[in-house]
């Protein structure tokens, strides 16, 4: 089954606006992690939210988790051109050895 499917697939916004992307998954999880990837580069960890948490903040990032709906959202406030990247959610399934299952990602373009 597919895990960690994001929407939208692509998002184009202007600097200063907020960007929201969503992630849905199918199985029980230990945690859900969000990563950023600049074109052709490595995966940068942004934030982790555990299955018993509902909301978490880190700087301009806000993540929510609704385990009853098996969904999460990532909000980037006051976006900057440097936020242009692909964003992935990855689920760490319950009773696993930490295997992360990634979604296809949301491509975010922030124009000045």
């Amino acid at each position, binding site marked *: 089954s597919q895990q960690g499917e994001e929407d939208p697939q692509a998002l184009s916004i202007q600097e200063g606006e907020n960007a929201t992307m969503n992630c849905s998954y199918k199985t029980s999880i230990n945690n859900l*992690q969000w990563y950023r990837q600049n074109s052709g580069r490595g995966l940068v*960890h942004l934030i982790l939210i555990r299955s018993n948490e509902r909301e978490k903040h880190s700087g301009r990032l806000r993540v929510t988790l609704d385990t009853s709906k098996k969904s999460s959202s990532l909000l980037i406030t006051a976006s900057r051109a440097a936020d242009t990247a692909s964003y*992935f959610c*990855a689920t760490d399934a319950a009773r696993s050895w930490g295997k992360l299952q990634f979604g296809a990602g949301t491509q975010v373009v922030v124009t000045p």
Partner: protein
Amino acid sequence: EPEVTQTPSHQVTQMGQEVILRCVPISNHLYFYWYRQILGQKVEFLVSFYNNEISEKSEIFDDQFSVERPDGSNFTLKIRSTKLEDSAMYFCASRANRYDRTSGGAGGLDTQYFGPGTRLTVL
């Protein structure tokens, strides 16, 4: 902050050749992973490694693949006979012991930290 390193950054090889991709996980981490990302596609799990043995592997990780932790610092992925479809970015990741509060990174004990990747091109 400590980081995962990978070498080489780019490897070009001929089909049928063996390649070894190298990773140095974060010191004191105990769980190690390999993932790959074919161009334009999602990141896919290959294998997890703990206590000197494979703990889980995906369908992709067939007999052509193997992993090893030859010493206390390196973690390698070997592809015995490369195919064209093995061309991808290969990422190594590591994670602290979930129950060891002294070795977690800033993100917490469950966070997986990824290396910058090795781009493998099979011709």
